[in-house]
């Protein structure tokens, strides 16, 4: 066990955990930030995507000991009022079905638009390819990313 001082959604958070603990479980079990989802545990589905210094990152494979002072953003901190352009676009296109993967999809999309504000169709497909949606909402996801890019 060790103490870690984390910077999550602009707030200092202290946790005492095994240094190997993935950020996913630090967020979910220790900080009750449960918007970040467990899907596979091996960085294959994208449900656990967060931002580390603005970059999309699979939190299931990110040990807390590797985070240091880098800023973490989770779905809860993407915007204060749930009005990030990507979130608004998601609502406009009424994307979700079951909703379980959508926080990860949104975080991946938001990171893409951070680094590439006007992505091509192919760039969107490539960036979003690591996020599985078992309900099959891919077309709406792509349309929402385009809408968010245009806003």
């Amino acid at each position, binding site marked *: 066990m060790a103490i870690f001082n984390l910077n999550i959604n602009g707030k200092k958070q202290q946790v005492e955990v095994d240094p190997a603990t993935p950020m996913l479980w630090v967020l979910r079990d220790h900080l009750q930030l449960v918007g970040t989802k467990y899907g596979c545990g091996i960085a294959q589905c994208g*449900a656990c995507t967060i931002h580390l210094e603005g970059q999309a990152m699979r939190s299931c494979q990110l040990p807390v000991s590797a985070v240091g002072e880098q800023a973490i953003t989770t779905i809860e901190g993407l915007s204060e009022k749930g009005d990030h352009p990507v979130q608004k676009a998601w609502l406009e296109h009424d994307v*979700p079905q079951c909703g379980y993967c959508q926080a990860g999809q949104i975080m991946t999309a938001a990171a893409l638009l951070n680094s590439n504000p006007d992505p091509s169709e192919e760039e969107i497909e490539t960036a979003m390819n690591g*996020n599985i949606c078992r309900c099959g909402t891919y*077309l709406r996801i792509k349309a929402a990313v385009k809408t968010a890019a245009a806003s």
Partner: protein
Amino acid sequence: MTLVKTNLNRRSFLKVSALAGGGMMLSFSWLAGCKPSSEEALSLPKEWFDLNSYIKIGDNGLVTLMSPNPEFGSNVKTSMPMILADELDVDWKNVIVKQADFFPERYDRQFTGGSQGIRQGWTPLRTAGATARQMLVNAAAQQWKVSAEEITTEAGMLHHKGSGQQASYGEIASLAATLPVPEEINLKKFDAFHIIGTSRKNVEGQNIVTGKPLFAMDRFQEGMLVAMIAHPPAFGLKVKSVDVAAAKAMPGIRDVFTFQTLSDDYERNGFDTTTFTELVAIVGNTTWEVMNAKKALTVAWEEAADKNVVVKGWNGAESILIPGGIESTEGHKTRMEEMARKTAEVLRKDGDPDAAFKKADKVIERTYTAPYLAHNCMEPRNCFAHVTADKAEIYGPIQAPEFIMQALSARLGLPKEKIQINLARMGGGFGQRAYGHHMVEAAVISQKMNAPIKMIYTREDDMTYGIYRPTYTATYRAALDKDNNLIAFHVKGGGIPEHPVSANRFPAGAVDNYLAEGWKLNSNITIGAFRAPRSNFIGGAEQSFMDEVAELAGKDPIEFRLELLRRAKNNPVGKDNDYDPDRYAGVLQLVREKSQWNEAPSNVHRGVSAYFCHNTYVAEVLDLVIKDNLPVVEKVYAAVDCGIVINPDAARNMGEGGIVDGIGNALFGEMTFVDGVPQKSNFDKYRLIRQKEAPKAIEIHFVQNDLEPTGLGEPLFPPVFAAVANALYKATGKRFYDQPFVNDLQTSEMRM
């Protein structure tokens, strides 16, 4: 207007406050988050009045509607309350939707599955809405001393033209709640609907995009422990002995123990699975600690012997053999091929198929196969349970709460009244979450630990637990006369452990000589409902075959089907044909028109398919191009007849999902076994369709009619398999008989 007797659905009209357990507790946390619209709406009322189990009206006119069915992504939490709201005549922006928990004494049917939510909820929900509206009208009539017939309602307001009086529902609700439930009420004419048939956003949208805790996986309670289970690594194995010492010594671990989920003499129902009834529980403080301890656990497994269990189904109690032994996919294939050559059970026979095949000008025979499939809901199985000496609270993902209650009661030794099942939003279901074994497991662990626990499956546990879509095969034969008329048709289908044949479906009724046969093999690999059970294989097989028969007959594949449907309408063969030829033909004609079938672009390879199941008719045209040796689905057109469409944009979303899911499973879906061990346990090996492989565009067109609504969760799924196969044939010149098609694609020039 339709006059209905309210006593048909009497239990729905009991006042919640009159029921055991008292009134519904309303908390501000959900009220804040559940407004369906961001438009300016009413604030919270000081007092709520129950008009019936579904409807509460606040003193300021705000309305709470209870959504009865568990939500797994088909959007019933929006569409079912829309039905209530329309008959109640309220403004949707002043509606709050709340998920009902499992209360069979208050709600008619709390089952999500079989595409039946809207179809079976339609009349009860309309009746509940109309009854509450009538009670408000009657209360206003009493207060204003006018005739109820002279009162009209609109958007949560009551009006009396003659006297010029008006009031909001909120002002009248306290009196209305005391009035007797009308014996009979009139339902609206369809052309008076103002919410039904209009697109309304998902009431949970804002909560989903902001990551609010909606799933059982997200449940947290002070003092809660985390539990995981270890199940046998192979079907046919059971626990021999467990060395708990190492796991128990790991940090944060509270206990490690084996436990029974169901006893061998327990009389099961059809939803109590027989997969693994003895498991190892690992319980600790946090998920990561429990995951680590699970890895340190040493379990010795041994082969299980043959076992008989009693299962009580629709046809009474039956003793079912769970065979011992270790099975593999290779062995399954051999046994299935043997069975396919043997005599099978005749399910339907019209005319003289033998004679017709003998005198045929052309005969074609083809065999189709499909593997087991894992559901792979994005949310792995999990459940929260808090069991104390005299009661149990269970909160988890469950499509069929009613069917797990018996097992919970039997296993916990608590009467059903002492068990409360609360309905979490499900991170996918697809049939798999109809089987509530995870609820029993969580409850048993909680009871043993005497603490609230949240039990979580790892993805690997989830993918290797069983309850798969069965493996199937079907051999089709068709006979054409010299004029290329279909004179005989034969389907012989089998599978493990069930056959996929629905003998009375198309083309039964359209062919003079028809034979349907089925056979099955037993196995210890458990199976369960999977998005359109059986149809999801047989629909694709049949429609692929039809394409080949049409080609042999030299006919356009749509026209060939329409010709058969005309026969089924004008001069049907047999009596029990389970489809309406006109509606079936209607979707084919609509998809032909919308896809401009007769003017297909030259660079596009098209496949068509049509199927009727779960009460809804669907036809699909799939356009495929080859880019860099890679098949790319450019566009899918679907024509759907599901009667009245409640929420068109959400309905399209559901349809798009079914199509994407169908393409994914047709191309990639497969679970295989070696020595009883599932060969895929996570998404690195089990391939699910991803963004790049999804169609570039999907158009869903609904047949406009005034027929009562049917469901959409399943019907768009089965036909896609054939639309993909038929388009791939056009692209490659090769027919695809064995799912997943990626296996055959890899051996060709294509890469996937």
